[in-house]
């Protein structure tokens, strides 16, 4: 029966994508080593405290930046609004660790800012206090600056969808704009905000580059310390499994808190309320509110990269540059399409068959995002190598020939790892879009003779256009920046912009790496602009006005 095929397909695909996560748990099941005792005695408390602080800080930070800017550009009118709409997404294109490098270059004791201060006021080291950028608050700030676009995107979509009717009712009840925002707009947007924030927090937990460079010991740096330094893979996987359990608990809580409420659109004829026109002081305030994150999150770091690249590009850019860029773009666009298709399949399958088993499978497939990239890559590598080995020994035994490596070290393995890691990004967006399509749409299409697959193609995909574009954009940029899985899983002689940037940066040749970092940023900007324009043209749940 058709529906059962869907259940099987969706559960199967979801479990397959959860393979790396299962591998981590499976590996973690081995007996604990004495490293644990050492960790508990010395640094574990620090790891946990720093990780939790970082996670909460980044969550709050992204809300503080993302929500006001989303509300201003979504609901208000002020100078530069149209431009900010897409420009505010730009920080997303900068890898977090690159951002960390540029700010360190600028703000550290030896950097131009402090040097200028010292020279201007003739201070020496003891005469003034300058907040250290390479610290836990610094790391929080860096991550909040690169990650807030997730919250901004989802919050803005939610604000745009709120019907005029609800706002008008509250207006007629004499509620002022400020209270209206707090009591109506924000609570209605809650699911979107929570979805955005949980993505951001998962990413913050999994971050390695930034915290490692800033010397902040987190759970993730701990995993690598145990693994690389003490050569104890089991303990490392056990730490990773703990991290996963923690995230899983958080996600379950989030789901439970969201369960009571259903957020389908009920009114088809919703008119967009006219934009709130800000004037005078308020309009300047609005412009400033949007300008600051843009400056700090994009203009300054990109400017620093530009300055570096200006100096070093002539030596660094050679014939291989185009090849690197080609690989990066190819991988990013290919995996964005692949991951989007998977997210659609899982999201739609879950909608067709909202069974506990299906849901659980899809949830566990979504856990990959919280796993540090390297751990996830190992989670891909181990089972793939095991498959290769058993296929090889089987064919040797029966046919006397060796198949060698079928999966390991192929681009397929790489795309699989990307899918396992970035699926939740696309899934969040797709699911949020799907909940906004009333179930009667599905039924109507079915009763008009469309099979479930046709309903997806003919009804959901066109209606989800803006959600799908958003998902595509997020995954594209994420893959473009992705480093650890690419580094460990890529085939021979295959480099990307991110790998090249990392190799130079980790050799502490920041200025030399700038050209490649800048290329990542530029490759990310194009789609950001194109897609955010497309999104702002298509209003959710509405056809383009003809």
């Amino acid at each position, binding site marked *: 029966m058709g529906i059962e095929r869907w259940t099987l397909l969706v559960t199967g695909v979801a479990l397959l994508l959860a393979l790396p996560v299962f591998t981590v748990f499976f590996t973690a099941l081995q007996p604990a080593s004495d490293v644990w005792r050492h960790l508990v005695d010395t640094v574990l408390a620090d790891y946990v405290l720093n990780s939790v602080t970082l996670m909460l800080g980044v969550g709050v930070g992204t809300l503080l930046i993302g929500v006001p800017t989303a509300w201003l550009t979504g609901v208000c009118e002020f100078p530069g609004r149209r431009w900010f709409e897409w420009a505010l997404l730009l920080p997303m294109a900068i890898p977090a660790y690159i951002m960390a490098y540029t700010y360190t270059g600028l703000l550290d004791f*030896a950097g131009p800012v402090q040097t200028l201060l010292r020279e201007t006021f003739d201070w020496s080291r003891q005469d003034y206090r300058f907040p250290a950028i*390479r610290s836990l608050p610094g790391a929080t700030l860096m991550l909040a600056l690169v990650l807030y676009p997730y919250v901004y995107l989802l919050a803005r979509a939610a604000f745009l969808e709120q019907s005029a009717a609800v706002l008008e009712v509250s207006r007629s009840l004499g509620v002022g704009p400020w209270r209206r925002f707090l009591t109506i707009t924000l609570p209605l947007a809650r699911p979107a905000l929570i979805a955005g924030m949980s993505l951001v927090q998962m990413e913050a937990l999994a971050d390695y580059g930034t915290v490692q460079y800033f010397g902040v010991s987190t759970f993730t740096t701990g995993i*690598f310390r145990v693994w690389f330094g003490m050569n104890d893979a089991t303990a490392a996987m056990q730490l990773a499994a703990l991290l996963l359990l923690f995230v899983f608990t958080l996600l379950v809580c989030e789901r439970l808190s969201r369960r009571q409420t259903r957020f389908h659109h009920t009114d088809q004829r919703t008119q967009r309320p006219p934009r709130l026109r800000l004037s005078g002081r308020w309009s300047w305030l609005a412009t400033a509110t949007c300008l600051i994150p843009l400056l700090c999150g994009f203009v300054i770091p990109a400017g620093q990269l530009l300055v570096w690249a200006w100096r070093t590009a002539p030596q660094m850019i050679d014939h291989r540059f185009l090849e690197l860029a080609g690989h990066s773009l190819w991988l990013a666009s290919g995996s964005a399409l692949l991951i989007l298709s998977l997210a659609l399949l899982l999201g739609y399958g879950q909608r067709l068959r909202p069974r506990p088993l299906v849901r659980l499978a899809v949830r566990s497939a979504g856990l990959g995002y919280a796993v540090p990239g390297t751990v996830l890559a190992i989670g891909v590598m181990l089972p793939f190598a095991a498959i290769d*080995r058993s296929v090889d020994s089987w064919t040797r035994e029966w046919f006397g020939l060796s198949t060698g490596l079928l999966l390991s*070290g192929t681009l397929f393995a790489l795309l699989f790892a990307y899918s396992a890691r970035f699926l939740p990004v696309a899934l969040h967006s797709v699911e949020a879009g799907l909940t906004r399509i009333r179930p009667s749409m599905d039924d109507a299409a079915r009763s008009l003779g469309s099979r479930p697959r046709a309903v997806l193609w003919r009804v959901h995909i066109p209606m989800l256009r803006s959600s799908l574009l958003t998902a595509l954009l997020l995954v594209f940029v994420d893959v473009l920046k992705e480093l650890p899985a690419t*580094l460990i899983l890529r085939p021979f*002689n295959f480099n990307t912009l991110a790998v090249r940037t990392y190799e130079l940066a980790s050799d502490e040749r920041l200025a030399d790496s700038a050209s490649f970092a800048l290329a990542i940023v530029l490759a990310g900007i194009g789609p950001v602009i194109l897609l955010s324009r497309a999104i702002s043209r298509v209003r959710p749940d509405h056809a383009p006005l003809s």
Partner: protein
Amino acid sequence: MSNRLQSRTLPSVCCVLLASLLAPPALADGEVNIYSARKEDLIKPLLDDFSQQTGITVNLVTGKETELLQRLQSEGINTPADLLLTSDAGRLTAARQAQVLQTIQSEALEKHIPAAYRDPDGYWYGLSVRARPILYAKDRIKPTALSTYEDLAAPRWKGKLCVRSSDSIYNQSLVAGMIAHHGEANTETWAKGLVANFARSPKGGDRDQIKAIAAGECDLTLANTYYLGGMLTSSDQAEQQAATQVAVFWPDAKTTGVHVNVSGAGVTAHAKNRDNAVKLLEFLASDQAQRWYADVNNEYPVNPAIPPSATLKAWGAFKADTLNVAKLGELNAEAIKLMDRAGWK
């Protein structure tokens, strides 16, 4: 109706793509495949030379040591890799213990590479040496005040020291060396003293420590020489400037010698192109390649017959630690635990 078109073409396009992705890497005869933990820039030019001279195609994947080792292990007998290159002796020891390397007996290698810089049984060979001396601010510290690594823990250096985090393999390896020479208890006391002297909590890389000295944030640090060399020849004016303000001091000249570690390589246990791999290894130990290490990357050649670069020469000669570098790998985990206990972040 474009929907219908998409609904048919997309899956088939995906299938074709997937099929093309699954094709395994070709393993022809005139090839050698390398897993390298050395960055591409620090190895590729040499490999290109090798290809040109021998006609053997070299395929390269770079990555981090432990990950490459993991990849090698999980691929087992099917691994395409013939040669594992790492930038640290400890990983080579780990690779040997993981039984992914094989022994190579080669006169050329044994002739060029001193015994301290290779595995006693020939599982791996060191290719370049890096030293981790003390760097100091020229204008504030007299070199006569400096003596040994141990001395850095003395109270008079309080607030003078910038050191990178204990996550760094260089520091781990240095501490492992200290444990080998002075025992665990002494080393822990030393590490605590060192931590007490930190001017700031550890952060950044080696170059950042040098810049901090130049900016006056601290006076002393531990750094690999090639970072200083790299800064001196950097295209970045500010880096060059900073580098000129610090000088190298070779500690422990009268005792155990300066801490050194090697980058090296070993032929994998299941190499399909073993002969080519040995050829490459011998090439990397040859005079030509050794000179390249010295000139381009400011590392010390393992081959004592090859002189270091002009930059390195200017810092003077030093007595290197004669401890077999394999020992450093064995003590690495101990070193990390010790640094954790000492509060070295």
